[in-house]
C-alpha cells in the first residue's frame, strides 16, 4: 500500500483529522460543537474521551458515525478508517459497509430507547437483518449468542425490555452494538444512569469484550474516574476541542493543560483524604460564541495576552499532545 509511509503495522484503526461539525441555530448562528478535532485510535485500544457536559463529546460520536440531525453540517476534516476516508463516502456505501458493521455506537440513554413491545432477542436479530444478508433463524441464533456474550442468559431473548433491569438493558444495547462484529465501538456515557454497582459490572463487561474481541473502543464520558478504570489513552475535550491527549498515566499523574490539571483537582476520590476540592471559576462557554484565542482563557488562572488572541496549536510535550501556549513555561519543560 502506497502513501502509508509509517508502515501498515503502525496504522491506526481510526484516525480523525481536523474534524469540524457545527449545528445551525435559527437566527443565532453556528454552534461549534466539534471544532478541529484530531486523534488516532489504535487496534484494540480503549480511548477515553472526557469532558464536561456540552463540550461536544456526543457530537463527535455522531459525526464519526454520520447520523447527524438536520441542522448539523460537517465543515471539514477527515475520518480515516483502515486507511480510507469514510467522511466523503456516499451515504449508500457508508450504510452498507461502515455504519454498524465497522463502527457501532452505544448511545447515551439508549437503554431506555429499546422498543417496549418487541422481545429483546428480536430487536437484536433485527439489527443483524438490517445490516447483513442472513436468514431470520440465523439472526436469532446470533442474537442469543450475543446475549450470552454480554452475560445474559440466552433464554431471556424472549423477554421484553420491561422485564430487564437497567443493567440488563444496557447489556442488551451493548450486544446490539456488537451484532455485526464492528472493529470500533463508541460507547457514549454507557453507565451514566446506572447505580454504582451495576456501573462497575458494565465497565467490567466492556473491558472483557474489548480484550476478548480486540475491539477498539472510544469511551465517551464526563467521569474521569471511569476513564481511569477503563482506558489506556485519554483525550480531554473542552468547548469543542481536544486540549490534551496522551497515555492515561501521563495525563493523570502529570496533567499539562491547565484545564486538565484543574479538572483533576476537582474530582473527589473515595480513596482521597478529606479536603476542600478545587473548582474552576465560571462555566464553559456558549459554543455559539466561543471566546477567541484559547477557549479556556476566561477560566484559566495562567492566561496571558497571547491566550486571548491566538489559538494555541497542539504541541507534543513529554509524549503528550497539549494545546496550551504556556505549557513549557508553566512546568519548566
Amino acid at each position: 500500500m502506497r502513501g502509508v509511509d509509517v508502515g501498515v503495522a503502525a496504522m491506526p484503526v481510526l484516525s480523525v483529522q481536523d474534524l469540524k461539525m457545527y449545528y445551525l441555530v435559527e437566527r443565532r448562528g453556528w454552534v461549534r460543537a466539534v471544532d478541529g478535532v484530531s486523534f488516532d485510535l489504535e487496534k484494540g485500544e480503549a480511548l477515553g474521551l472526557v469532558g464536561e457536559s456540552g463540550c461536544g463529546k456526543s457530537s463527535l460520536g455522531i459525526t464519526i458515525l454520520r447520523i447527524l440531525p438536520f441542522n448539523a453540517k460537517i465543515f471539514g476534516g477527515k475520518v480515516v478508517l483502515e486507511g480510507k476516508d469514510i467522511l466523503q463516502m456516499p451515504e449508500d456505501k457508508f450504510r452498507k459497509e461502515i455504519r454498524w458493521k465497522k463502527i457501532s455506537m452505544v448511545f447515551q440513554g439508549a437503554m431506555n430507547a429499546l422498543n417496549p413491545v418487541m422481545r429483546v432477542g428480536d430487536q437484536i436479530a433485527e439489527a443483524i437483518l438490517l445490516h447483513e444478508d442472513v436468514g431470520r433463524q440465523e439472526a436469532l441464533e446470533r442474537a442469543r449468542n450475543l446475549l450470552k456474550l454480554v452475560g445474559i442468559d440466552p433464554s431471556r431473548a424472549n423477554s421484553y425490555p420491561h422485564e430487564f433491569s437497567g443493567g440488563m438493558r444496557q447489556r442488551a444495547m451493548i450486544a446490539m452494538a456488537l451484532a455485526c462484529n464492528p472493529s470500533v465501538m463508541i460507547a457514549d456515557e454507557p453507565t451514566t444512569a446506572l447505580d454504582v454497582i451495576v456501573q462497575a459490572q458494565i465497565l467490567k463487561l466492556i473491558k472483557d469484550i474489548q480484550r476478548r474481541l480486540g475491539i477498539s473502543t472510544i469511551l465517551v464520558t464526563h467521569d474521569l474516574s471511569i476513564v481511569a478504570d477503563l482506558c489506556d489513552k485519554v483525550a480531554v475535550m473542552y468547548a469543542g476541542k481536544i486540549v490534551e491527549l496522551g497515555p492515561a498515566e501521563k495525563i493523570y499523574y502529570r496533567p499539562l493543560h491547565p484545564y486538565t490539571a484543574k479538572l483533576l483537582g476537582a474530582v473527589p476520590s473515595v480513596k482521597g483524604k478529606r479536603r476542600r476540592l478545587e473548582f474552576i471559576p465560571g462555566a464553559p462557554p456558549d459554543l455559539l460564541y466561543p471566546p477567541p484565542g484559547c477557549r479556556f482563557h476566561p477560566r484559566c488562572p495562567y492566561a496571558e495576552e497571547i491566550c486571548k488572541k491566538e489559538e494555541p496549536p497542539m504541541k507534543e510535550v513529554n509524549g503528550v499532545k497539549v494545546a496550551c501556549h504556556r505549557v513549557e513555561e508553566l512546568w519548566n519543560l
Partner: protein
Amino acid sequence: MELVKVEDLRKYFEVRTFTLPFTKKPKLYVKAVDSVSFHINEGEIFGLAGESGCGKTTTGRCILRLIEPTSGRILYRGENILDYDKSKMRILRRRMQIIFQDPYESINPRMLIRDVVAEPLRVHKLASSEEELEDMVARALEDVKLVPPDDFMYRYPHELSGGQRQRVAIARALILNPEFIVADEPVSMLDVSIRAEILNVMLDLKEKYKLTYLFITHDLAVAKYFCDRLAIMYLGKIVEMGDVEEVIDNPLHPYTKALVAAIPVPDPKVKIGEIPIIGEVANPLNPPPGCRFHPRCVYAKDICKKEEPPLVEVKKGHFVACHLYSKG
C-alpha cells in the same frame, strides 16, 4: 448536642395494584423507610447515602414533614415535631429548609431571581419594607457568591448557568436564617468543575451561620469530602453508620464493602476489582425476610435468612446491622 433525632421512622407508600372485581387482594406497600433511627448533632454534616430507591429522599422529606411519616418520632431540639399543629409547624419551618437536586423544584422559572429569593420572606411576612427586602436578598446573594448581587437580581433563572441556579436555590433556602438544611443531592446534576464551588459555598455558610446539614447523596466520593458522619441505606434501612472515614475506609457491612469496591477512582493504576455481591437489588414491594441483603450477601449464614439484624455499635461510634458482627 443533638439537633435532630429520628426514632424508628417508617414511611410505607401504598401501591395500587390491578385487581379483578370481587377479589380481595391484600394492600401492597413499598416500605420506603422502615424503622430508621439516627441523630444529627448541632453543627454537623450528616450524610445519607445508598443506591437510588433505598429511601434517602423519603427520609429527608419525612424529617421536614414535607411528607407525613407512617410512624416514628422526629425530635427537633428534643421535641417531637410530629405532634406539632399547623401553626407550630409553620414557625418551625423557618428553621428547617431543603435544597433539591434540581433547583427548578424550588425556583419558579417565570420569576426574577430577586423574587425567587425573596418569596420566603413574603410568605412569612418578614420584611417591613421593599428596601429591607431587597437588602436581605442582596445579602443572601452575596453569601452564595453571586456578586455583585445587582447583576443577578433582575435576571430570570434560565439566564443563569446550572451552578448559579443552584446557588440561587441555596440563597432562597438561607434567607430565613435556618438552623437545619436538608440538601438532597444538591450537586448531582452539576459538572465536576463547578460542583466543588457549590460544596465550598455550603461549607462557608455552615461556618458563618452555624448550620447543620443532612446531606443526601448517592456519591460516596463526594460524601467523603463533605460529611462528618455517614449512614448507608439499603432497601429502607440503615445498614451501617459512623464517622465518614471509618465507614468508607473501613466498611464492615457486606453491602458497604461492595458499594465501596465498585467505585472507580481517578487513578489509572487503581482498577475496580471483584465486587463481592450477588445478583441485583430486590423488589421493594417484596423485600427478603431476615436481613434484606442476605440474597446478595457472599457471607450470609442461616440466621441471616430468618432474623433481622439490629443496628449495633461494634466500635465506638461505628454501627452495623449485620449478623456477622453480633455477639455470641
